[in-house]
């Protein structure tokens, strides 16, 4: 199953997106990387690295991001980890989380899910 990482400036938002997606796809592995280590708003290189490492090892990982630095920091994490089956999806984070995890639960592969998310 394709796993998901949700990167947000807000820990609550990342957790909330995952809660919502779990309603329709509880079996899909999802990992939040929201806020800074001390709980304040922002994106944390270490938190994102940890979440992606936890998520990897499955059939691939899709990382969903909210704004600006979430995208840039995730790009830097991916460059440093050098994993081959991790992708970043653009587009609305809530819709992408729900659509992506439902597809993952139904057995869709990494590339298939990525293609669907592009049309959101």
């Amino acid at each position, binding site marked *: 199953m394709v796993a998901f990482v949700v990167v947000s400036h807000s820990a609550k938002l990342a957790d909330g997106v995952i809660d919502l997606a779990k309603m329709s796809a509880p079996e899909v592995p999802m990992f939040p990387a929201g806020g800074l280590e001390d709980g*304040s*708003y922002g994106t944390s290189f270490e938190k994102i690295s940890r979440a992606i490492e936890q998520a990897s090892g499955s059939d691939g990982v899709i990382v969903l991001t909210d704004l600006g630095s979430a995208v*840039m920091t995730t790009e830097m994490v991916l460059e440093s980890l050098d994993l081959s089956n991790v992708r970043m999806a653009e587009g609305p984070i809530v819709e992408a989380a729900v659509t992506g995890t439902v597809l993952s639960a139904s057995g869709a592969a990494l590339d298939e899910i990525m293609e669907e998310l592009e049309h959101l």
Partner: protein
Amino acid sequence: MMKNETILEIVGKIADRISEEKLFLTELDNAIADGDHGINMSRGFEAVKEKLSGADIAVPADLFKLVGMTLVSTVGGAAGPLYGTAFMNMAKALKDRTELSLEDFLKALEGAVEGVKMRGKSTTGEKTMLDAMVPSLEAMKAAFAEGKDTKAVLEAGVNAAREGVEYTKTIAATKGRASYIGERSIGHQDPGATSYTMMLEEVKKAVV
């Protein structure tokens, strides 16, 4: 132009300056975006100061790499990956040089500019730090080519960066969080261009 000790000193000065200007940078950011630039930058540079105090640094590239990586880990906003990439690219450009000549410094800054363009998928005229970085580098390269001394070159750079900050007041943001308010960002100076100019001012003060 610069040895490790001088660079360390300058980074310390930059950290102090950013701390002093924390509220000002935050106010600038508040006017057009999410108001975290000052707080984020000062958190990042405080962490840099701490990291550098006990670090084993052989060549300037090590120092720049450590600064870059620390900023990426601790800033938390867009300035983290942007300035982080800038400093890490400076390290890459310098390789194992043991001392920085003016020419090395300019080459490193070229790497920094390329890094910010790549990381932010951005260019000049979008109301970002690049509007200070690019014209100041061009001015310094021109002054260097004319055979001017370090003092004159850095002066040209700082002046062009300040003009770049003024220029950001005249344009609408099309990149970053400020682009959400588009035309309404006109009249406000860009916080990233401002913080970059502060850093260059500290370099000039320390070297000249």
